[in-house]
């Protein structure tokens, strides 16, 4: 029990730290948290009959990245021509309902909710991206690294002009 609480705490702190780095636009710092084997995907939410759950499609991915393509996204952000984030959006990631689903020797599968608030430029209306995350973290040289992230948004038609942000 005691160990469970420590692990829960450790993982929660990791997720909060990650959110902080992204909200502070420290993308290099964020990249450090990723395993080289990272798989970063976002399937499409769809409206389907209850009986035909799951109500998403893995055939359509809104993010389909690995460490090379994530690096590319980050490098792009550093050019002075990444207009989608110039000026950068103000984002606030709220991570909650952190549930550790599986623990093995050096890996944990953790599910959580993400509520991402995005305020863009002078817009008075904010974009909200809400959804569920399924992450796998692995201990590599003493540090937890993100091995896979799967993010499923709650909207079928996203209320944001693009996904120039990370989820």
């Amino acid at each position, binding site marked *: 029990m005691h160990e469970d609480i420590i692990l829960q705490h450790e993982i929660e702190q990791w997720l909060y730290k990650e959110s902080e780095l992204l909200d502070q636009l420290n993308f290099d710092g964020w990249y450090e948290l990723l395993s080289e084997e990272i798989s970063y995907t976002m399937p499409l939410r769809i409206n*389907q009959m209850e009986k035909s759950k799951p109500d998403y499609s893995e055939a*359509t*991915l809104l993010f389909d990245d690995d460490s090379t393509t994530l690096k590319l*996204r980050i490098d792009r952000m550093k050019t002075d021509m990444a207009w*989608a984030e110039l000026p950068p959006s103000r984002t606030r990631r709220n991570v909650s309902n952190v549930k550790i689903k599986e623990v093995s020797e050096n890996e944990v599968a953790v599910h959580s909710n993400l509520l991402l608030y995005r305020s863009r430029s002078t817009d008075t209306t904010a974009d909200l991206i809400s959804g569920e995350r399924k992450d796998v973290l692995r201990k590599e040289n003493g540090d937890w690294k993100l091995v896979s992230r799967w993010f499923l948004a709650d909207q079928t*038609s*996203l209320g944001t002009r693009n*996904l120039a942000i990370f989820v």
Partner: protein
Amino acid sequence: MTTTSTKQVPRLDEMTRSELIQYLKDTVKPEEGMIPSYIFSHPKVYELEMEKIFLKDWLFVAHKSEIPNIGDFVTREMGGQSVIVTHGADGEIHVLLNVCTHRGMKLCRMDNGNQKNFTCPYHGFNFKNTGDLIGIPFQKVVYGETMDKSKMGLKEIRHDVYADLIFATLNSEAVSLEEFLGDIKWYLDLAFNRAEMEVVGLPQKWNVDGTWKLGSDNTISDSYHTLVSHGSIAKLGLVPTGDYSKYGYQIYTGNGHGLNLGMPNPDGFAFPESLIDEYKERLNEDQYDILKQMKNMIVCVSPNIMILISSMDLKGQKISHTSLRIWKPTGPDSMEISSWMLVEKNATEEWKRLSEQAFTLTFGASGIFEQDDTENFTDITQNSKSPYHLHENIVFNYTMGMHQEPVEDFVGPGIVYKDKFNEANSRAFFRNWLDQITAE
């Protein structure tokens, strides 16, 4: 100190329909390269567009591969109206108004699925996937013999198919789809008839506070913006710097349709080599010759379709991807983008997978090319809402390339300009648009 002015802001909302039409004719001057700003967000202009374009034109609703089996369906929208596109029990495609004939409930609220029948959530009228009304709860009790079910089927929307693209029109008097598409078919073949194509998954959808017209305008003629808007990509070395997007042709084929064809491709053949026989069999020699040299192709089918073939080097491999999107108007100053990704059905699984990845990375909702365009669409549209623009008659400049003459030696149909830095296609697009919305 006070300033006074006798100048009035034109009150478009107080004009009669014919005054408004006259005002549009007086201020929108495509041939002079003058497009006034107010047309990009004025509600009165939008009303005319919905009525005279979106209720009249042929609109894209689905690709045949999305509903391959009997019972498959997808729901789509045209002119703000939901429709169900079904592969009916009779083996035919039906485009059905998604409105229950009893009291107007939206019959189907799913994005896709497979169903024999659709049951209305309100009172339970039951319709076959061909549109026929087949069941009414307590029919005998509530209607006696007075209800003729055969007259109460779902309204069937006129539709036709070209290159596996299912188009529908809410206008029973529209010209045929063949005639509407005209010469753009030659280029649609390159995108969707070069091989058997299939849609991957379902369309991605996202919402932008920008007018649909900027999407079409950007598609039909604007290769010039890539230098700056997509400058980050050049900085990363993903595309050659400078004028890489200049080379090729800008082509107008009539009825508001046109394209920009990027060629030659310095990277070589960008399509699966294993399918060369299929390409050769399905395309004529001239078309195949274009395909061989193609770097990219950006097609606008009026009013609001964008078709994109783009190629890149991903993980050491030359790879192309093909997509279709619609800029669906959701208001005078907003749109929903829906984007379908397609692949050659007979390509290898590895090729398909890489092509999907290339698409998602570059032109999906998170695409690194995609992202920057929406900044332009949003800010232009929001700017244009200021009454100042009407007051001062702010006009945008569309004169690029007016000094150029079309070339005669291109193998495909249309009015063809060498190189793509030109606004001839936009001038033609807005002429077509103006003629449509001012038609009596």
